[in-house]
């Protein structure tokens, strides 16, 4: 669980996630914003287009309606001319009837064609119902009165036709006799059903429609519902009210609500009558385009966002994964695996880095091989130099005793010499052989040290034992011993024999440095720092033993060389004692330091590693 959480935390803080989020969110915001702006622009464009379309349609329909009514106007004019010029005799009902029938055959849209004379006679095609015709007086009709009053073409308001009971409008013109007196009025009817059928035949969008409003009474005179079987007049009332409002606001385009549905409404003034042509388009139909745009925009944005996230992810992976592989390569190489190589083909910048990395690893591998060869040659040289020095030391140490032994042997072999002399010479031989034996033992000790047998040992105890050995000699040389073994922790993991021998060597050296007496102090302390010198460290700190004598001391140059093998400032010394001491301490994880001045004495500080707390205190 903790591992999982660590991985999640690591991933959340990773460069990969940040790069991915930066790319993905930037593209998302950009794409979404662009999509929204495009949608707004498209919507505005569609609304503007709808407005232009609706207003343009209303204008076009007004023109078409005007053209439709023009045929009525022109035909009435033709009728009037025919009657006035005697082409048709108005006093002959049969001729008049034939002429009307011919006119009607050619004009299906003419509902009724008629002529009423000033005496109340009335001729119409198609014929009136007889029961109506019997009591019909054209002079009372609005078309007759209007034409008489104006003296020219007259368009009635909407009124109910006497014969069919249908509402409609009439185009009428007065007919004058040759003397200029009124002979009658001719007219052509258009019922609202026919008018509406014509308006309905004009396509306005898919579900839009056109209609005509009479402004004076604000009533609909042509509407698709009139053609159908609709009985509810409320929609037409709503349209009339909406157009009143538009006209009052002097606008040509607006939104109308009929019931729960909303419509775009555009109006146009009819050319020569007090009418308004309206066009109504359901908003739902119009907004279908906008909804299509919205859906398309949303889909495109979603696809773009998805693709951007996908491409961001791929880009991130393509960039980060090779880098991680490069990082793993660095870890492997830094861990010592110089034969490791990374193989990255793209992206090219990382591939170039990988090639550089591989070249670096190859170079490191070659450098390491060269260095190893150099080290091996150097070690060989050092070994040969050490061997030479050792050989020279041995030769030097053996040469003198051998000379003494040769001289003494010659004395012993000479029988003419006194017996006493020959016995003394024999004793010299024995002494020098013993000395040679001792020297060789020391060489062997230095050249081939014993294996360490570590155990928990109280260093104070070893010190006391070593002091006990030298106490008689020190007393004889009048050397005052002072011991302060006050370090709280003194148990170390040591080879007791070798450490005991080391203490003895150091104490004997101190006694030899004070042949005429002096003062030797031994003190211990604990050093809590884990770092010793450059090559040693101890987590549990060190036990520090100070051996301070008041002997002849050394110069700085002598102190620097004192731990080198075969370096001795005594006449009878081999020069290996302190070298063995230093190596013994190094093998135990400790070290030794010396501080000395001529005629003031020397102080050796021995650092023995202490075990960490809680370990091996039972000794």
């Amino acid at each position, binding site marked *: 669980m903790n591992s999982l959480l660590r991985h999640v935390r690591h991933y959340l803080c990773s460069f990969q996630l940040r790069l991915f989020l930066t790319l993905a969110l930037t593209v998302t915001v950009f794409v979404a914003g662009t999509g929204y702006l495009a949608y707004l622009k498209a919507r505005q464009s569609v609304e503007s287009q709808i407005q232009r379309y609706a207003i343009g349609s209303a204008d076009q329909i007004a023109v078409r309606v005007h053209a439709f009514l023009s045929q009525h106007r022109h035909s009435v004019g033709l009728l009037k001319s025919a009657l006035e010029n005697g082409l048709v005799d108005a006093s002959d009902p049969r001729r008049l*009837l034939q002429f009307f*029938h011919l006119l009607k055959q050619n004009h299906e849209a003419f509902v009724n064609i008629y002529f009423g004379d000033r005496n*109340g006679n009335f001729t119409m095609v*198609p*014929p009136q119902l*007889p*029961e109506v015709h*019997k*009591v019909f*007086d054209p*002079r*009372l009709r*609005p078309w007759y009165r209007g034409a008489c009053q104006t003296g020219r073409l007259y368009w009635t308001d*909407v*009124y*109910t*036709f*006497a014969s*069919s*009971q*249908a*509402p409609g409008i009439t185009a009428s013109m007065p007919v004058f006799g040759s003397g200029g007196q009124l002979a009658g009025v001719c007219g052509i009817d258009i019922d*609202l*059903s026919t008018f509406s059928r014509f308006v309905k035949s004009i396509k306005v969008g*898919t579900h839009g429609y056109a209609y005509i409003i009479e402004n004076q*009474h604000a*009533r*609909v005179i042509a509407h698709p*519902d*009139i*053609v*159908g*079987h*609709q*009985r*509810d*007049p409320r929609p*037409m*009332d709503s349209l*009339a009210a909406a157009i009143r409002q538009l006209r009052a606001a002097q606008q040509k385009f607006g939104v109308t609500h009929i019931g729960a549905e909303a419509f775009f409404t555009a109006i146009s003034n009819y050319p020569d009558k007090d009418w308004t042509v309206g066009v109504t388009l359901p908003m739902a139909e119009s907004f*279908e385009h906008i909804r*299509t745009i919205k*859906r*398309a925009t*949303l*889909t495109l944005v979603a*696809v773009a966002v*998805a693709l951007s996230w996908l491409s961001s*992810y*791929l880009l991130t*992976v*393509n960039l980060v*994964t*090779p880098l*991680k592989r490069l990082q793993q390569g660095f870890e492997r190489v830094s861990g010592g695996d110089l034969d490791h190589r990374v*193989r*990255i*083909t*793209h*992206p090219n910048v990382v591939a170039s880095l990988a090639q550089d990395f591989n070249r670096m690893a190859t170079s490191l591998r070659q450098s390491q091989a060269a260095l190893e060869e150099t080290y091996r040659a150097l070690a060989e040289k050092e070994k040969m130099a050490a061997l030479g020095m050792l050989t020279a030391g041995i030769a030097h140490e053996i040469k003198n005793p051998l000379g003494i032994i040769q001289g003494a042997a010659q004395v012993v072999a000479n029988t003419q010499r006194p017996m006493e002399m020959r016995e003394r010479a024999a004793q010299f031989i024995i002494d020098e052989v013993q000395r040679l034996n001792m020297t060789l033992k020391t060489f062997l000790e230095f050249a081939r040290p014993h294996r360490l047998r570590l155990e928990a040992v109280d260093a104070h105890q070893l010190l006391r034992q070593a002091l006990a050995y030298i106490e008689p000699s020190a007393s004889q040389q009048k050397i005052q011993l002072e011991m302060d073994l006050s370090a709280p922790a003194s148990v170390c993991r040591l080879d007791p024999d070798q450490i005991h021998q080391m203490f003895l060597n150091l104490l004997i050296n101190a006694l030899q440095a004070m042949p005429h007496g002096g003062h030797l102090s031994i003190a211990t302390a604990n050093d809590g720092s884990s770092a010793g010198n450059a090559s040693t460290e101890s987590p549990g700190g060190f036990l520090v033993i100070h051996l301070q004598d008041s002997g002849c001391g050394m110069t700085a140059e002598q102190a620097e060389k004192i731990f080198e093998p075969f370096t001795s400032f005594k006449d009878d010394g081999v020069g290996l004692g302190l070298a063995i001491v230093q190596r013994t301490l190094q093998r135990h994880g400790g070290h030794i330091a010396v501080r000395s001045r001529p005629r003031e004495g020397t102080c050796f500080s021995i650092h023995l590693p202490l075990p960490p707390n809680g370990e091996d205190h039972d000794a």
Partner: protein
Amino acid sequence: MSVTKPYHMFRSYPDNAADHRVRRRTCLWLMVLIGWISACSPAPESQEVPSPTASKLQVQNDFALPELATAQAQLAVALSRINSPRQQEAALKQVIQQHGRQRPVVAQARLALAYLSLGGDYRLAGPETCRAAIAAYRDIAREFGDLAAVGAKANWYVGWIATDLLGDVDTGMAAYWRVADQFAGIAHLLAPTAPWVTLVQAVMGTGPDNDQRAVHPPLSDIALLEIVRNSPRSDERQAALDRLASSAPAGRVTGYALRSLLGRTQVPESIIQQAVSCLQSASLEDPLWEEVASLLQEHRRPDSAAGKAVSVKP
């Protein structure tokens, strides 16, 4: 030695062991994406436009009418919306067939069929056609005589066709007298109002020019008027005028009757007296009564015998 590599769905290096698996997942992702895009794409718009009417009556092979809720509405549409006489005849027969039990509707359809039998323009109908129409109207009068409005109209049409189209005044007068005697005061039977007319009237409102139905006189009055106009017998004319003047002295039908009688050369004094009486309550704004007054003035002139005997109010 195993090297742990981070898991990634897509890898850029082709030498990876999991490349095949990655490619399969990539394809799967792309298919899901394409499917999602397809699901989100707008569906093609339907080209179907719903029919404005739920059902239609197939009257003829090439002619259908909307099926409306009531027989009256169905009849109204058949009477008002069809321009072709052939199609209108078929529609009326369809109404009779469909609503045969509703006698008023069937009677009106029969009346309309009888009228259609006169052709597109009755003024051009031949004698045989007229006689056939008379027979049809007589059948209707016989069959639906219990429906006063139907009986009045059928008899009136018999009188009209006989008098105006065939010149058979005797038959015509007899029919008119039947109307006047048996169906006096019966309201004029008008065709039922078509739905669209109702709609327009609702939008237009009512007014003096728009309410023609209200001023339609009873057929019995028009029958009396036709007797006055066409009867060769003066007593018959006088009787008809008396009945008209007694019921509506200032009515337009009475005015038409007076104008017709005053237009004759020989006008009895009784008629002049009646005209004077009617003019006292009639409106002289009406050109009809103006004409009546004018004709009366003609008869008042010194050279006119009748003119000496009467005085007419302006």
